[in-house]
């Protein structure tokens, strides 16, 4: 099992690495870059979800990351690679502003606090004109080169964001199967019981928040360099970077390792395809179809795509059906276990 999942993982990574070899279509590569940005942000969002914590405010960390790299680069001439690292620090520091709500508020109330937090930052970005240029936004200079993360074609961007996404996934897997992951998953199930066992959950949740925010900040910074233009409505956008990652995660399987990856890979091209197909006279229809698709997925696979697929797989493999046991958790990716976890996450 362990070996099998390793082979699968390597195969998928190799396939992802070969995408630009098979196509040089810049639009397809653009969609792939967006998919990987969403994989990164959703995986980061999901680190909180390991602990059963729902954030609807990751646009805050995304935007902080975008603005950090842009302001440092454009106004202070700081190299954007360093800017990405700085973005992780500022996003992490920014997330500390959510420490009090994180430790005081439960479930939906914390989610609402995060939503308000991201909206406040969007408004600050609009009004802090000397720093952010307000609604006009910041445009990064066209000077190209690897050192400046600026290229004329999409391929280099693709490889950079692929590497970043793989690092984020690696961190997520490492957390899930480490002491921190066990404690977060237990806390998601029963916070009071886990404290009675000696786990300091405030510290644990804060650590998850800071790591999640820092990773999101890195992808926000990359997106700033990739899209050239950084403005409050885009980079602090609640629908784009707060709701979408949460949707990806919930659709794929909240609190599982593979769920957010699958969710982002499925939902990003779907949204993109619907948007381009139903433009013009049928504009708006894309949202209707997207909404219906969401309802269907949630109805058919309440634990997310990953757990839904597992159930389907079991149905057609009757020999696995009789033992309802969860597998040994020693492997790097054990989807069956994530199935159980996602089911627990709903309670």
């Amino acid at each position: 099992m362990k070996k099998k999942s390793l082979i699968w993982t390597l195969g998928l990574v190799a396939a992802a690495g070969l995408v630009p070899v098979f196509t040089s279509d810049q639009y397809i590569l653009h969609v792939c870059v967006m998919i990987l940005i969403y994989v990164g942000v959703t995986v980061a969002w999901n680190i909180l979800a390991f602990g059963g914590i729902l954030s609807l405010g990751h646009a805050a960390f995304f935007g902080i990351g975008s603005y950090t790299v842009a302001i440092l680069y454009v106004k202070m001439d700081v190299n954007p690679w360093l800017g990405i690292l700085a973005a992780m620090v500022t996003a992490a520091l920014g997330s500390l502003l959510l420490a009090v709500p994180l430790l005081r508020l439960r479930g939906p109330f914390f989610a609402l606090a995060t939503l308000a937090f991201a909206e406040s930052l969007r408004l600050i970005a609009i009004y802090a004109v000397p720093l952010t240029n307000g609604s006009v936004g910041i445009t990064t200079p066209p000077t190209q080169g690897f050192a400046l993360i600026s290229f004329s074609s999409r391929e280099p961007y693709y490889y950079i964001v692929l590497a970043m996404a793989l690092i984020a996934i690696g961190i997520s897997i490492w957390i899930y199967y480490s002491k921190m992951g066990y404690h977060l998953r237990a806390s998601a199930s029963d916070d009071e019981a886990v404290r009675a066992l000696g786990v300091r959950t405030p510290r644990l949740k804060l650590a998850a928040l800071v790591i999640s925010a820092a990773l999101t900040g890195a992808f926000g910074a990359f997106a700033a360099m990739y899209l050239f233009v950084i403005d409050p409505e885009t980079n602090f956008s609640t629908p784009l970077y707060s709701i979408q990652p949460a949707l990806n995660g919930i659709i794929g399987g909240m609190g599982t390792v593979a769920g957010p990856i699958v969710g982002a890979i499925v939902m990003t091209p779907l949204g993109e395809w619907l948007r381009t197909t139903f433009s013009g006279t049928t504009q708006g229809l894309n949202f209707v179809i997207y909404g219906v698709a969401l309802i269907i997925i949630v109805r058919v696979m309440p634990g997310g795509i990953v757990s839904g697929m597992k159930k389907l797989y079991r149905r057609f493999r009757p020999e696995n059906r009789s033992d309802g046991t969860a597998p040994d958790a020693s492997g790097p990716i054990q989807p069956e276990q994530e199935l159980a976890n996602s089911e627990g996450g709903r309670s």
Partner: protein
Amino acid sequence: MTNATILKVEGVSKRFGGVQAVSDVSLTLQHGEIVGLIGANGAGKTSFFNLISGMHYPDAGSVAFAGGDITRLDPASRARRGIGRTFQVVRPFTGMTVAENVMVPLLVNDSSVRRARLRAMELLDELSIADLAKKPAEGLTLAQRKRVEVARALATGPKLLLLDEVLAGLNSREVIDVLPFIKKVRDRGVSILMIEHLVSAVMEVSDRMMVLDRGSVLVHGLPADVVSDPRVIAAYLGEED
């Protein structure tokens, strides 16, 4: 407090709104002692437990454990000092296997997941539930879940174990299986405070018994004396009108 004293609760009280759940209760537990706590429903047994484990803080009185005052300490810190507890309504971590449930407390002081897994298996083996290790914790019978709960509490490496009705809901055969285990844990030097409705079972393992009635101590003494006390019989069986 002497060296042999592990827990010293002095005059604790707790009020929830209009209900005086615990009023002026004191209890001292010696190293390696088993004390049974009995009382009717709503007598304040679990509330008293919560004051010791830190789920609630007392309005008055103090709690000292292993020589230090812990009256205002949070539950996690108390657990780290050596107070393990089970919950009356068992609370397995759903979405995790039985082994993983037991690994959670083991990972508090040791970051090695591999070592925690081995130690969890040992504990499950001691409780004769090693065969359940890979099962999801939510898919167990009540008796099995109670054992997982005890294994999890033991995994914190407690000096004092608070058992909240671990025998409730078990059949007589299962009760007979569990009692020797409780004694075995005590023989390793763990003090035990157990809430139980099953008086005969508590009598069998307890060194002392304390009866709570409407938040106050009704009787406190040797098991044989306690169960024959007319006040206890009245409180337990109800006074005849």
